[in-house]
């Protein structure tokens, strides 16, 4: 059996009376691309926030390599190799792209302010290393030459990729991508899909993906979990999910399963 990188055990998060996440269990195998889907307000981002430490779940455990991490400071969780991106891009807008990536490298560097003042060997070494690392990361996400642009001046698609570069700088073991293709056109979406696969294949990063674009989800996911009203309603491979009546119902409302079946058979007919 493959190693489980992160596991959620009956995680619940309430906002007042609202159960945003309700006793959700997740098991993400190492090296997989795992998608979480569900209608708006299903609690996907809340779950992400629980994993990355923004929220402390009311009940349940989040186990990272088998160790509970819920309630830890977010920076600590990040330092253990969990990086994330955000639903609406959150870059450091008044800093350059380079600087954004360099901040992402924060945990990989050890030089402190004293080193900076004295330009100690450690500082010099780390400084040139980090510069180079940042440049190569920008290169990796296809932003070569844009390093000295203010992040807020970059076009939207580039901002998305810069955010991923910043997350990658942390050398994550686990990458949480929150709707990475939102607002992208078809070409960009396709590129990004390949890019995500490259991340997993080349860098061996496990990825959890929140995504609305079913084409992307179905195309690259190893496994998919479906949340609805904070509750996990299905889990399985893309094929299993596609034919799961509860999922279809959640997306299309009661009776949706039948509707979908009808639609599918019609399409099959047309194809034939």
């Amino acid at each position, binding site marked *: 059996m493959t190693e489980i990188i992160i596991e959620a055990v009956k995680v619940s998060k309430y906002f007042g009376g609202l159960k945003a996440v309700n006793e959700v269990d997740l098991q993400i195998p190492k090296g997989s691309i795992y998608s979480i889907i569900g209608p708006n307000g299903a609690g996907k981002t809340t779950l992400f926030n629980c994993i*990355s*430490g*923004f929220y402390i779940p009311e009940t349940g455990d989040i186990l990272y390599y088998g160790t509970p991490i819920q309630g830890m*400071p*977010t*920076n*600590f969780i*990040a*330092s253990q190799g969990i*990086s*994330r991106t*955000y639903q609406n891009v*959150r870059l*450091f*807008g*008044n*800093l*350059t792209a*380079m*600087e954004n990536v*360099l*901040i*992402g490298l*924060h*945990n*990989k*560097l*050890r*030089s*402190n*302010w004293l*080193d*900076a*003042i004295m*330009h100690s060997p450690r*500082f010099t*070494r*780390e*400084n*040139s*290393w*980090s*510069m*180079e*690392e*940042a*440049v190569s990361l*920008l290169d990796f996400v296809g932003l070569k*030459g844009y*390093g*000295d642009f*203010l992040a807020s001046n970059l076009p939207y698609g580039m901002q998305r990729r810069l955010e991923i570069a*910043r*997350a990658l700088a*942390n*050398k994550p073991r686990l990458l949480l991508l929150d709707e990475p293709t939102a607002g992208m056109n078809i070409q960009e979406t396709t590129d990004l899909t390949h890019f995500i696969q490259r991340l997993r294949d080349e860098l061996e990063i496990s990825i959890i993906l929140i995504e609305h674009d079913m084409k992307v989800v179905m195309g690259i996911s190893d496994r998919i979990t479906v949340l609805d009203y904070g509750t996990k309603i299905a889990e399985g491979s893309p094929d299993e999910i596609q034919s799961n009546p509860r999922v279809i119902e959640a997306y299309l409302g009661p009776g949706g399963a039948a509707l979908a079946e009808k639609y599918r058979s019609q399409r099959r007919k047309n194809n034939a």
Partner: protein
Amino acid sequence: MNKETIRTGSQKGLLFGIVMIFLVLINFHIMAATMISKVLGTNVLRGAFPEVRFMIIFLVIFGMWAGWSAVRREGSTTNKLFEGLIGGMTTGLVVALFGLILFFLLETQTDVRRYLTALSFASIDIFLLGLRGMGILTLFGLFTLTGVLGGALAVGLRSQAVANFIKKIKTSIRNLRQRITDSLPDNVKKYGKYIFYLLLLVLLLLLPARWGSYNNFVFGMVGIYVILGIGLNIMLGLSGQFMIGIAALFAMGAYSVALLNSPFPHGLMWGFWPSLAVGVVMAVIGGLLLGLPIMRLRGDYLGIVTLGFGEIIRILLNSDLLTDLTGGPRGIQNIQQPTFLGMPFNDVSYAYLIIIAMAVSIFLYYRIENSRTGRAWLSIKEDALVSQATGVDVQKYKLLALCVGAAFAGLAGGIFAARNQFTGPNDHTLMVSINVLSVVIVGGINSIPGIILGSFALRGLPELLRELETYRLLVFGALLVFMMIVRPEGLWPASRPDLEEKGNTGLKEDLDPEENEGRSDD
């Protein structure tokens, strides 16, 4: 000639008329006339009244300005002239009406100085140009005339020909500069910055010995505010913590040096250098004590808490409670002068000390800013939450920013106290914090040249404005508003560094990948 013309003209005229009335009510017309007479070489004793002709020059300038600003950008030349006329006439009318009241006061010998302190008979008399009743008409005529003149001037100077001329001059200057730059050898171009710094250094080394103690003092004041500004910028500009209590940290440095190096109240004579070190450490401790409980606060809440902290420290320094420790309101006098290699300090050596302290501060600032620490601070300022999720220990770095900033404030305070040989609670009021805040923002946040310019503007300007006597803070306040409106981004806004090239040309071959990996592990 249309409605718009009359409306703009009369509006501007009214505005200028009211401003003129205000200026007369605060006796500024006398001040202005005195300044003009000084510029023209006739000295006027303080408290004495200048001659009427200088007053007239002032009125002419004012009237022309009124006419100038009444002229709109669009419209025909006649229209513009007419606008100037209307503007001047309205100003004249308002001023004449006011003059009528003044004339009435003068004739009936009604003394209103109980309420309007500046309105003495002599002042009224000079405003009416010494002509009494005729003065009112003269004023009206004067403003009408100068209004047209101002309008004409505006028409003339804003005309296409003049614009072309200015453009031409600008282009030729640019060409000239380009040619000079081109003709310079590459080495000079490359090291131009360094040559400039070298020149600046030489200038800084030569000047203090040459320009007299007053300028040394003012320069020192500016330098101390530069250091304070750098300290505040680390808190405010880099890590985004709104701090209005830097006077408290300043006081910690000043009082440490004062208490440890003066015969009273404790008789500790540690010497300047050790006490300065203690002062810096004390300020850091102060920053730490302030920072620890308030880590969660943000924005204006942080601002008011730090303001409260500053006030608490000042009141405590002044209070009966700590009188035995800090000398209370009497402050600490006879702070011993530092010696360097056995030589006692005078104003010139203080200027050098401050230059060195400034240089060191700037150096340290740049080093910290362009490092992992500085970038962590910047990211906190931009978005603390994301910064933390990216791996920055936000609380630790916020606290670090407070401490590092406090160290600069302590350094400034220590030098300040020793230089004045005295420090008391009145040196550490809220106004100091507000001034430092203004220095940073007026100069340009996160920009060292900006902070230096800001210090010159905010600490040097009031000294230069001393000629204006009691009007100086009035003028200063107006200038502050004006500066913010004209240059909201600061006098010298910061720019982000260009890093990408640096990374590309980095010492690639020197790097051992294994080493990097090892580093990321520990």
